[in-house]
């Protein structure tokens, strides 16, 4: 299981001279769940934009399963097996949860298959199961714009799973959720990590503690500041410094959670 699913070498992205990502190196093992944290403006979302092909790197390469992603566009990368959940839930509001999932679940995504192929029964069963998992079975046939924020978040995670990608990129999955929903989301992600490789971007340190079993990566000003186990990272003075923005008194270590709160 030590095979790399994602390798990023010397990645730089600049917008009109501003370097959103600066000489970033990163790699992810197959089957790993990695949490990325970092203060606002650290380049976290740009990082996801690069992997999914929305933005092209100025320098450097991204390899997914050994393949350089540069020549591929978003939909091709998605078909290779990269799924993405956005910061604010982006589901199709005028469609029902069932239809949302159907679109994501479709295995043949070219124009004519979508037009002529009937969805196989197996697919419909998968969707039924998924609706149960994300707790939307009873609301499966009402328009998604009537769902609550939390339900939309879950629906989007459901869509991500329906897509059955090898690599899940999850951007702030618990923003705006209640504690209970957060807890459930965490459990869902942990159970998904048994069969998928996952990158989670998150601000909520309590949540990070819950899900981060392995390594945590800290981004700062477009580069990797440090990597390590959550407890190590949390007590790393550099990390505390970027979160607080000034020199810290090393005799009195500050809890990172406090730092994040203050930020």
């Amino acid at each position, binding site marked *: 299981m030590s095979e790399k699913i994602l390798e990023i070498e010397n990645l730089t992205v600049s917008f009109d001279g501003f370097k959103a990502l600066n000489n970033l190196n990163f790699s992810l093992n197959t089957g790993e769940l990695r949490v990325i944290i970092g203060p606002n403006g650290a380049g976290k979302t740009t990082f996801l*934009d690069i992997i999914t092909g929305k*933005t092209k790197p100025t320098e450097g390469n991204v390899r997914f399963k050994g393949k350089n992603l540069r020549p591929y566009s978003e939909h091709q990368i998605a078909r290779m097996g990269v799924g993405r959940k956005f910061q604010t839930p982006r589901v199709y509001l005028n469609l029902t949860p069932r239809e949302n999932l159907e679109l994501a679940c479709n295995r043949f995504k070219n124009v004519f298959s979508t037009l002529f192929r009937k969805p196989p029964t197996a697919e419909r069963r998968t969707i039924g199961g998924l609706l149960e998992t994300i707790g939307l079975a009873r609301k499966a046939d009402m328009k998604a714009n009537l769902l609550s924020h939390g339900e939309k978040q879950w629906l989007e995670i459901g869509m991500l799973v329906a897509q059955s990608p090898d690599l899940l990129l999850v951007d702030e999955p618990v923003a705006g959720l209640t504690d209970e929903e957060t807890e459930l989301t965490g459990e869902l992600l942990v159970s998904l990590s048994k069969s998928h490789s996952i990158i989670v971007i998150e601000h909520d340190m309590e949540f990070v503690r819950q899900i981060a079993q392995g390594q945590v990566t800290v981004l700062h000003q477009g580069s990797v500041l440090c990597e390590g186990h959550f407890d190590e990272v949390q007590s790393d003075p550099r990390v505390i410094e970027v979160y607080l923005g000034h020199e810290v008194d090393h005799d009195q270590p500050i809890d990172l959670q406090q730092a994040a709160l203050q930020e």
Partner: protein
Amino acid sequence: MFTGILDGIFNGLSVGSVLLLAALGLAIVFGLMGVINMAHGELMMLGAYTTFVVQNGFKQLGAPWTQFYIFFAVIAAFLVAALVGLALERGVIRYLYGRPLETLLATWGVSLILQQFVRSVNWVLVIGLILFCLLFFGGLWIVKRRPDFERIRNWAIAILLPLSAAISFAVGSVLSKTYKLAVTKPWFGAQNVDVTAPKWLLGGLPIGNYQLPYTRMFIMVLTVLCVLGIYFFLNKTPWGLRIRSVTQNRNMSACLGIPTQKVDALTFALGSGLAGIAGCAVSLLGSVGPNTGQNYIVNTFMVVVVGGVGKLVGTIVGAMAIGITDYIVGTGILAQLFAPIPPLANFFTFFATTSMAKVMVFFLIVVFLQFRPAGLFPQKGRTVDA
């Protein structure tokens, strides 16, 4: 050969400067609010008609004034178009922000109304309109002061609207019955009207064996002044700073206490006023009619598409590029240049008319967009297309 090209560039610049003048307001409005104003051409047309009115007014004043009416006309055109633009923004567009396609349709409706308005405007219409506005908005203003306004709002409108419409209509028909033709005769009618340039703008500057008309030069100077004025306004004044900040990030600006609604209204009025000035300039080039605006609208849109949004320089370069290409292709200069190579020459001769040049320019634009889909000077960053 050389003079031919020089001539082409000069004339192209002059065509381009009219385009630029027309597109300037559109580009600012589009950049700030994402609003495509289909009535922009009609605002130009209003500017042109204002020029016509001012010219006639100054004729009454006698000799020295007739020579200088144009300066007052520019200002009057700016004000009239800006006021109409302000009314348009407050009355229609502000309800449609964030829905650009609907705005496009609504402003198209406004453009139809404006076209018909200049065709059939007469005293009866004007008096009726003023009366209606007084009654309706006055009534609404009175009702608004009641504490339970929100609840009775719909009722108030349902009563006030037909009532004031009926009163104005009645007054109008009484007026037209009593004064007959004196009040029912259209001011302009459907025919085109002519603006004659003052004497000192007639003739032209001889360059080689070719004359550069003074009117064209006047327009170029006017364009340069407008561009400089806009540049100064946007970059050096507090309101310009506000406009730029709203262009870049509307929500953040609102959070910082910038009155975005006022900024919108101001920008729209400014853009419309520029259309008015453009109309004034256009009136010097030929007769103007209710459909004048329609002739310019598509070309000015193309300038915005080529130039990209958010930067003044894009609009300038876009307008000049389109103007010059259009002129060079349309006058057959290319056909002469390629005369030694018959197939190419034939090809360019085929496009060497005004309308066919537009065909060519459109294809060039489409080809251009294959390489630069966001225009010459696109905005970059993560916020784009979020």
